[in-house]
């Protein structure tokens, strides 16, 4: 079967060739779905006022933001970072140090968040310039090295409170809806990040990133400037992680090195992105929505920390072995095949 005679190509829905091996739903359906999600997300804490549930909700939206941010860099460029905790932690400590030294309290602390993001983004520049010069294997290891350097630095400097860490300023709003401001702040960050992720994926910048992921040398040979592109993605990713880290610190109330720079953090967000679908927009969101509440719930139920560690590892292995491309791409492909089957059946009638 030569390509010259392949004029009669089966078109997907709406006469447009199906993109990426099959979409899960038509554009109209996706828009309605998005609207529904937005409504649910907005009224969630008003409906579910239980403190535990809203607590989980806050951390979930924070991790939706972080997983999406991680995906913007690692998912689109293919450079796996296991050191994003550095940016998250930088954001946390930035808020902590500035709030303490400039005596910022209450609502105003939220205003520090963009600053925290900016600091994390600035930190990403030298790290990226060093780490992005090497091949992917070595890159992962360098990110791990940076992670440990960060943890060490936080433990040893007086300004970061050494190994006892920092305490967050105390919020000045009512205990009844205590979690809500955090939730809405987190929701805003998460929504903005996901939107940014979608824009990037469709953009020229995103195309170049993804080309780098597939064949960096060929992309460079065609004129894609690898270092600026990769570095920009890293800086964007770091900014969001810094924002999220700052918010999380304020919410949780404290930060100390082992807690903030936790190797499980990086593994968890990688798993979220993989689970939902690495390199997709909605994948990390799904991953965070499923895995973060599960993880928190298990931590509450199981007194034994170690069991949750084993479970995390086991879930990861299951995902990697059986759902290597993640839930959403696999579902999209199955849907595409099913649609093709229906079409063939329709043609036969």
């Amino acid at each position, binding site marked *: 079967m030569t390509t010259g005679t392949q004029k009669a190509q089966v078109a997907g829905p709406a006469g447009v060739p199906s993109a990426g091996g099959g979409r899960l739903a038509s554009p109209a359906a996706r828009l309605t779905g998005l609207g529904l999600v937005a409504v649910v997300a907005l009224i969630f804490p008003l409906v579910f006022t239980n403190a535990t549930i809203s607590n989980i909700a806050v951390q979930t939206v924070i991790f939706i933001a972080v997983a999406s941010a991680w995906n913007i860099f690692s998912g689109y460029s293919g450079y796996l970072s296991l050191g994003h905790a550095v940016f998250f932690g930088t954001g946390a400590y930035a808020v902590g140090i500035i709030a303490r030294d400039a005596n910022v309290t209450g609502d105003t602390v939220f205003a520090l968040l963009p600053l925290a993001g900016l600091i994390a983004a600035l930190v990403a520049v030298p790290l990226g310039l060093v780490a992005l010069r090497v091949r992917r294997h070595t890159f992962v290891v360098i990110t791990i*090295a940076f992670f*440990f350097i960060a943890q060490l630095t936080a433990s040893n400097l007086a300004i970061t409170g050494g190994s006892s860490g920092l305490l967050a300023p105390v919020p000045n709003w009512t205990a009844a809806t205590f979690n809500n401001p955090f939730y809405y702040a987190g929701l805003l960050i998460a929504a903005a990040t996901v939107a940014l992720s979608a824009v990037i994926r469709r953009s020229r910048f995103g195309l170049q990133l993804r080309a780098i992921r597939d064949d960096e040398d060929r992309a460079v040979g065609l004129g894609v400037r690898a270092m600026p592109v990769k570095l920009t993605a890293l800086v964007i990713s770091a900014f969001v992680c810094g924002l999220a880290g700052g918010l999380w610190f304020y919410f949780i109330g404290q930060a100390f090195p082992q807690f903030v720079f936790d190797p499980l953090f990086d593994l968890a967000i990688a798993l979220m992105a993989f689970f939902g679908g690495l390199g997709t927009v909605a994948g990390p969101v799904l991953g965070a929505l499923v895995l973060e509440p599960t993880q928190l719930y298990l931590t509450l139920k199981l007194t034994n*920390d170690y069991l949750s*560690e084993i479970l995390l590892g086991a879930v990861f*292995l299951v995902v990697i072995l059986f759902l290597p491309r993640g839930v959403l791409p696999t579902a999209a492909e199955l849907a595409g095949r099913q649609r093709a089957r229906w079409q063939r059946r329709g043609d036969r009638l």
Partner: protein
Amino acid sequence: MAREVYEAIADGILGGGVYALMAAGLTLIFGVLDIINIAQGILVILGAYLSYVLSVHLHIDLFIGLAITIPVMFAIGVVIQWLFIRPLRGSERTSMTLLACYAVALIIEGILYAAFGPNFVTLNAWYTQPNASVKLFGFYIGDIYLFGFGLAIVAVVVLYLLLYRTTFGRAVRATMQDATAAALVGIEVNRVAALTFGIGVAVTAVGGMMYGATSGGFNPNSGYDLISRLLAIIILGGLGSIGGAMVAAIFMTTAEALVDIWQPNWAVAVFYLALVVVLVVRPTGLFGRQAVRAQ
């Protein structure tokens, strides 16, 4: 002052030998399977705990116990590779095997915590006691280090003979150079991969015993520190270069021991800073092959 420096250098070289052994296994796995086994750190700890169990509960001497722990760790390595690494395919293979190894490491760590709890333990024997030492060139060198050094030499010789004097070793070296070509000449690449992984992990039995005996205390959490050092070592030495890993190991532990004299808190940072500096100057590491631009 000078004495402290010489002692630090001596400590560094001896300690470096232990790390060299653990790192050699890790870089061998990379050379043949093209993956970074992040679980190597926790596997060393597992080896240490196995020696602990044999020593404390069965009263078997640490070195004699190796006759049991080496085959056990070898088997564990083969099983890990066969179950969790071999099935991975596709364009994301490199990233996925890395994460799979990380996941396996987590599981093992969790199991160790469940079995032994968070308390620090050490491996003890008559030759690990502080007074069991030999005076050499004016320094006291612990017996355990001497035995360990001897063991390391034996291990390196065995590894060398295995790689360069057996048919299997030839198959391993062939696969290291070109897996497709090796398969085409009839080498069972899957089997070679599994066995090599097993060997790389078996080395951790020895490394684990030495680490447990010389570290002054370990618990399941020690795996993180260990793997980050090992990774730094093999990258510095050049991925895939066993000789490079050994040189890098000794260099880094010596550097750390020296820095420890002045700044104990930051000593371990030397490892990572050395890594970063080297990579800025020479991204393939000291002895790495000019990286073929593999994805």
